């Protein structure tokens, strides 16, 4: 098991902060958890705690960006995208301000804190806002690449990060490109499209399927918006069946985004792995992934069903 993407974020922030003095960081009393504390220690003059006030967090970020700074604003995903949804929409995205919303503790792998802190709707909400790029990095290396890209890109970005450790899956020398999926495993029987914490299980599922002579293609779709429609259409045409996997509600997230492309351009069976329109609960990340059907075995079963539906 590799590092959590929030750990990678904390380290990557310090690196981009060293390269660009215009970068400032805001947090809402969760800097030790979001790991922006690393930046605070390295650049105390460019770190500002807003306290437990997420609406102000996002809008102060908008003001900083309007005056030429590059703010990275962090909190838990639930609060940065849920409580402050309208600030993200109206203060950041409508004027297309250069704010990087890097939210941690997304998804069910938050674990023991339970349902109130497990955001399973954020991809859906953020994806619906014009001008916003939505990115879900899979592991440490990809998070590092995404933060480096976000620091250079001019415009609003939402980066979804996790609390728990995840498998390292990103190939060496990787650079993040918005709108580009990465093929991690080749195959033509079925395609598994995953993001974030589910990319590791997707790769594992491909191995299990290979043992049963099923050749699965695995795409890491870190860029939810813009989405790599070409890779999805190609996968639909070449493999004839698709399984999506994410730690998010099956409504509105990666699975929905993939299904939108597939139904419009290349209809084939799509099965979505995600939480089934339900809230989470307390438990360890591993227990929760099992209970809510987010394991490699669940992906394997969905892949077989998808192939049967061809």
């Amino acid at each position, binding site marked *: 098991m590799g590092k959590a993407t929030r750990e990678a974020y904390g380290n990557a922030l310090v690196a981009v902060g060293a390269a660009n003095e215009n970068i*400032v960081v805001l947090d809402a009393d969760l800097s030790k958890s979001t790991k922006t504390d690393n930046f605070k220690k390295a650049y105390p*003059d*460019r770190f*500002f705690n*807003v*306290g437990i*006030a997420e*609406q*102000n967090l*996002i*809008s*102060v*970020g*908008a*003001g*900083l*960006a*309007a*005056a*030429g*700074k590059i*703010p990275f604003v962090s909190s838990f995903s639930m609060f940065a995208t849920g409580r402050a949804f*309208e*600030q993200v929409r*109206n*203060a950041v995205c*409508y*004027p*297309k301000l250069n704010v990087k919303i890097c939210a941690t503790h997304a998804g069910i792998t938050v674990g023991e804190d339970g349902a109130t802190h497990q955001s399973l709707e954020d991809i859906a909400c953020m994806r619906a806002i014009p001008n916003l790029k939505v990115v879900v990095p899979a592991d440490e290396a990809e998070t590092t690449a995404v933060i480096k890209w976000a620091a250079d890109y001019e415009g609003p970005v939402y980066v979804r990060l996790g609390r728990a450790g995840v498998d390292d899956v990103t190939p060496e020398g990787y650079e993040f490109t918005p709108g580009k999926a990465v093929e991690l495993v080749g195959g033509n029987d079925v395609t598994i499209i995953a993001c974030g914490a589910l990319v590791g299980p997707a790769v594992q599922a491909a191995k299990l399927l290979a043992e049963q002579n099923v050749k699965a293609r695995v795409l890491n779709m870190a860029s939810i918006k813009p989405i790599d429609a070409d890779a999805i259409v190609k996968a639909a045409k070449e493999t004839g069946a698709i399984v999506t996997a994410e730690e998010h509600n099956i409504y509105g997230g990666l699975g929905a985004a993939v299904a939108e492309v597939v139904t419009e351009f290349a209809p084939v069976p799509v099965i979505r792995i995600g939480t089934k329109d339900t809230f989470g609960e307390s438990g360890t990340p591993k227990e929760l992934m099992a209970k809510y059907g987010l394991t490699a075995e669940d992906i394997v079963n969905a892949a077989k069903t998808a192939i049967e539906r061809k």
Partner: protein
Amino acid sequence: MTTLTAEQKSLVQEKATAIRVSILKAVTAAKSGHPGGSLSIADLMALLYYVEMNVDPKNPKDGNRDRFVLSKGHAAPALYATLAEKGFFDKGELENLRKIDCMLQGHPDMKHTPGVDMSTGSLGQGISAACGMALAGRIDKKDYRVFAVLGDGELEEGQVWEAAMFAGFYKLNNLTAFIDFNGLQIDGDIREVMSPLPIAPKFEAFNWNVIEVNGHDLDELHNAIEAAKACTDKPTAIVMNTVKGKGVKEMEGQAGWHGKAPSAEEYEKFVAELLEV
């Protein structure tokens, strides 16, 4: 601390009347909009743009300019009328307010309107953005000032107090917030709908320098702004006692004119009244 000269005062009075006429013209042409709360801040807008603020219509994005955030974004006609008067764009644009394919949106849009420093309209957010701009000025060691205008009804938004706490905590002395205390919101008297009173002690409690003025008295307004500039360790809140619809007798103190446009006949009558004074 300087006092307002007779020449400055005369210029601002003339501009305030021109701004009021433009507000009515724009809202009448649009057949919708918010005249009441635009007229109540017309004196302040004229004073800010003709005396107090360092802005250049020819260089609206100058990094060292003073910033203006209309947190009560529905008073957009007042901002547009002022910017047009000042020469940020052609006055003819005012008659296209709220119309399809036109620059002047129902609420301020910083991306398409020269001189608009922040997109606003959803209440409570502009003051936070103004805090961000003031913080940026401090980080960058620039001496520009940030001015924000809030409605009194807007103070009912919880985010205003998140921002007030932030500005007080970080001692953003380059930030001045004006509260347009006209006493009326859409559903009626703010004392009856959901009273945010008392206003001044609330800002004081959040560690702001607070000054109460008659929002239509240019000397009082100017002296308060001078006092804000002189304050080195706190943001300043200037609570302006104003009259909603100020300048048009029929509109004064009427909540019904919060979001209603005059008819063509009313427009003629109101403008005649403004120009008589």
